[in-house]
């Protein structure tokens, strides 16, 4: 089992529904976020390229945040999901320092929080809240170990990228770019 998220930048409109949905699903305190949307503009009018991306923790195979955690609060759970156990977290901030994507934040209650791939929903056979809400249906979620899964198929057939590969974390959130 290797969970992965595949996001089609050709369809994403940057509406940020994924951000609100995550907030209400996971009770992310206002002013904080587990996912966010970026916009990249390139070129010169009227030859301009626009890319919109919904970003979050990449649940990296090679996760520095897990390595540097002194208590084991940050750990890799079943399916490669990177999680934080709130009551093992001392709030030392090492994992935040270690994440090249700044995907973690200090919850007002002190512990460190981040995207969980909505594992509580996965347990019930549901997709993550952001995936389920996206009005352009540009987010896909599934198991990379299953070659027939939608995500595997997409990565086989479509040109894709990950964020900051040079950081060497081998992310599990992929972006379709063609």
């Amino acid at each position, binding site marked *: 089992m290797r969970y992965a998220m595949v996001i089609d930048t050709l369809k994403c409109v*940057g509406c*940020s529904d994924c*951000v609100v949905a995550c907030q209400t699903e996971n009770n992310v305190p206002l*002013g*904080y*976020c587990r*996912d*966010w*949307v*970026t*916009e*990249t*503009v*390139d*070129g*010169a009018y009227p030859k301009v390229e626009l890319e*919109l991306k919904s970003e979050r923790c990449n649940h990296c195979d090679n996760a*520095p945040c897990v*390595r*540097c*955690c*002194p*208590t*084991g*609060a940050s750990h890799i759970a079943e399916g490669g999901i990177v999680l934080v156990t709130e*009551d*093992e*977290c*001392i*709030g*030392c*901030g*090492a994992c*935040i*320092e*270690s*994440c*090249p*994507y*700044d995907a973690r*934040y*200090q919850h007002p*209650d*002190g*512990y*460190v929080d981040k995207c969980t791939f909505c594992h509580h929903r996965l347990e019930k056979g549901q997709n993550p809240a952001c995936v389920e809400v996206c009005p352009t249906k540009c987010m896909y979620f599934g198991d990379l170990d299953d070659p027939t899964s939608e995500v595997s198929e997409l990565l086989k057939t479509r040109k894709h990228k990950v*964020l*900051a590969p*040079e*950081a*060497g*974390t081998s992310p599990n959130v992929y972006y379709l770019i063609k």
Partner: protein
Amino acid sequence: MQEEIFVSGRHLPKIDPNLEIWHWEISLYLFLGGLAAGILFFTALFYLLKKENEMQATVKYATIIAPIALIVGLAALFFDLSHKLYFWQLYTTVRITSPMSWGAWVLLIITPLSILWVFSYYRETYPKLEAKLQTFKRLKFLNTFEKFLIKNRKTMAIALIPLSLILGIYTGILLSAFNARPLWNNSILGPLFLTSGLSTGAAAILLFTKSHFERTLISKIDLALIFIELALIVHMFMGMYAGSQVQLEAMQILIGGSYTVMFFVFVIILGLIVPFVLELTEILGFKVPIIAPAMLILIGGLIFRIVMVNAGQLTRYLY
């Protein structure tokens, strides 16, 4: 024209626009850790070299700083935790891949050890105090305990050598382990912080020593350390210069950015070059109040860590 912006989300407190997760507490913690490591290293080294009597400050007096520094340092670290209630979780497991973890364990061992060491010299170094307190009269077992410690000073010293070196290196590794912060992510930081730690340790000892022999010897060692430290810093920049785009940008912060003045004036010039010159002239027999270079080195060492911790958090891969 190129544009990269956040459409939404991402005004995370202490993370956007740039990281402010670690504050002065961590800088202080790293400084004091290095200082204690330096002192304890020399203490143990010269004890084993049987220089106990020629070098009283090194072996007996200055050592008092180590446990104090370590305890204050740990307090600072604790102060910077955001989920303090769970501090004890640190000591429920050992995580080899996490410098933060083995650092915490090393501190757990070296701090009491340093206290024992100081205690073993207590009556000898502070007779007046003991005369007042009369603790040994009141608590008889202390006598046997002291005897036991004095008998085992050699063992303690042998343990202190590696422990102090690990502690010194750790203060650098803690940062350099972070791939995500290009300024920190280089192999020089460990040795560099160790050297700096030894040098601050030496400086602290200089504040205590009264013997000419001891002063000149420690000064000579310190000169060498400062020299190595400068060399390592140059090496670090050359490494970054040859490195990736992100590292080049990181280096900019020190040599042409927000921290340039602080780094060059307070760390390089006032913290290293000036004391180097002062100590040299002192050794060549000119009259220099030793307190001057010593204090400059100590302050420089602290500022060096403040700069590295803050500047490092300005550097990132994305956005």
